[in-house]
């Protein structure tokens, strides 16, 4: 069997789905499937953003606050009577400004990403607090709420369509463009990449900008879905998104990571949370199960790698 890490994960996602369909009452109801589709995109987008940064060997601890700040941008526009489009544009601009700041300090000054984003995490949170004084901004138009709550063609939640589109765009950008290739190469060995005539700082800048763009899209969906924004919008997704990225096979030291893996990981998280909820598990135990799965899947990768190596060696031995 020559299954890639990602396909194995896909099978695990499928197995989880089937298992829960059997044991969790109401898991397969159209209502539940729908609500899962509404729940997944906001986290999925943050996880993709995190993945792209991790592929460069970095991490973006400020990503959820970028999302929150971008949501604040949209909220300010909407509550001041601007239309949906200007609000979306401002949300994206807010996020890009944050991303550009991160990108600047990381790529031009050269400070390591974990340090920079530890700082900007607090900084962006502070900016939100200074703007909102800690209270939530809410009460957006009906039209805006359709982004997160509406259906595309009356069938599929619009937000999951948006997520799918961005997942595909991310996959294409990473695997099919020279920027994407440079991201992987930079993640593996930045010196050699620089010595190959790649503009590292530009590559990195684009990484942080792109991650913040994804955060902005997530923020738009969240603000629309929850009809409000507060300083902690999406903050619980921070370490979870790291977990989803690595569960999805992304190398935490950089150089490897695929969109499809992260998507499968996000789906597994979604199925399990929802299924265990339906089964009436104590919410703390849901965390326990997620933690256990994270470790188990990675342990499985380890053992299957080992097995594969042994098998390959044997084959090569025979061939030689």
């Amino acid at each position, binding site marked *: 069997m020559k299954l890639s890490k990602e396909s194995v994960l896909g099978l695990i996602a499928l197995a989880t789905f089937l298992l829960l369909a059997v044991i969790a009452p109401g898991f397969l109801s159209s209502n539940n499937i729908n609500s899962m589709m509404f729940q997944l995109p906001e986290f999925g987008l943050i996880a993709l953003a995190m993945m792209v940064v991790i592929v460069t060997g970095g991490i973006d601890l400020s990503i959820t606050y970028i999302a929150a700040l971008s949501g604040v941008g949209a909220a300010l526009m909407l509550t001041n009577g601007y239309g949906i489009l200007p609000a979306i544009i401002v949300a994206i601009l807010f996020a890009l400004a944050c991303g550009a700041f991160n990108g600047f300090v990381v790529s031009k000054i050269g400070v390591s990403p974990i*340090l920079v984003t*530890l*700082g900007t995490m607090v900084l*962006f949170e502070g900016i939100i607090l200074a703007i909102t004084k800690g209270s939530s901004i809410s009460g957006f138009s009906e039209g805006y709420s359709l982004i997160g709550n509406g259906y595309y063609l009356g069938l599929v939640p619009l937000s999951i369509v948006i997520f799918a589109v961005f997942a595909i765009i991310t996959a294409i950008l990473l695997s099919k463009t020279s920027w994407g290739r440079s991201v992987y190469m930079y993640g593996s060995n930045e010196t050699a990449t620089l010595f190959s005539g790649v503009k590292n700082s530009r590559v990195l800048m684009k990484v942080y900008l792109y991650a913040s763009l994804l955060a902005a899209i997530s923020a738009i969906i969240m603000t629309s879905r929850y009809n409000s924004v507060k300083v902690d919008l999406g903050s619980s997704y921070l370490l979870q998104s790291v*977990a989803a990225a690595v569960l999805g096979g992304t190398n*935490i030291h950089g150089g490897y990571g695929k969109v499809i893996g992260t998507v499968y990981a996000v789906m597994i998280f979604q199925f399990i949370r929802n299924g265990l909820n339906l089964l009436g598990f104590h919410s703390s135990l849901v*965390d326990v199960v997620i933690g256990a799965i994270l470790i188990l899947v990675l342990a499985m990768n*380890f053992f299957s790698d080992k097995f594969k190596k042994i098998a390959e060696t044997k084959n090569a031995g025979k061939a030689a």
Partner: protein
Amino acid sequence: MKALLKQKEISILAIILLIGAVLSFVSPVFLTIGNFLDIIEGNVVIGILAIGMTLIIITSDIDVSVAALTTAVAVSIGYLFTFLPDSWISVLLLFLIAPVIGLVMGLINGLLVSIIEIPAIVVTLGTLNIIAGLVLYITNGNYVNSTNFPQSFMAFANYELLGLPILIYLLAVVAIGTWFILKHTLIGRSVLAIGGNTQSSVRVGIDYKKVKLFVFAYMGFLAGIAAIAQTAYTKAVDPNGMLGLELTVIAAVVLGGANIHGGRGSIHGTLLGVLLLAIMQNGMILARIDTYWQNVVTGAIIVIAVSYDHLSYKRSQDKLAKIEVEA
């Protein structure tokens, strides 16, 4: 490199002095001994955890489960209090049991990292979820207050020696002990070695798996001690009280000059990192900074500090003349 290492720590010291100067200018209380003791005592737990984290970061790993680990031990301590008789022997016993509980959990992290070769961040994210979830499930978040504490423990918690709270001594012992391990024992040097170059360490016969096991177990051990300190400091056991503390701990270590890619880091640097964060926390109220702007100030200082530190490092690197060019 020693000179450079010093350089790195000197730049954070410079930042601390600068902030300290500003603070003592705006607030007369800042430069008092009482305030300093408060700052240090209030950061003993972070300090102890950061010291353990330093070793892990030197080996180029990371442990995000520390806060959960410490909480788990603290909760166990609260539970033990209902058993242990009210005597100083109980306090001693606590110093045996708590570190061992921590050690066992640390060992689990270590085994998964070294034997199963799962990246540390994944392992500890996993154990963070598992431990925190179980703690919450078992305790339901209920906290134990000091009415249930044995008097002997309260006496320990409030004990002062030569005018200094006992917890400060605890931090000092941990710091000096760890410094000694790092500087003067074989295992300590191996920690630095595998951080510097894992492949080389394999070749010279260092069992890097054992070393990794050690750093995580030691982290667990220190988490056990930190749990005692936490319980003595807050005089309560709060299952939610340390949520999110792991990032502060990591921040302190990296601000203190440890390199997350491994090989570099020191105990005194880490303590300086803890001090920097502590002074900023303390300074916000003393400097009477508007509540809503405190995070902006803190965040900006962190970004400026790490950028300044990095720029001065780069400049010193550039200045290193490589070749003696004749005039």
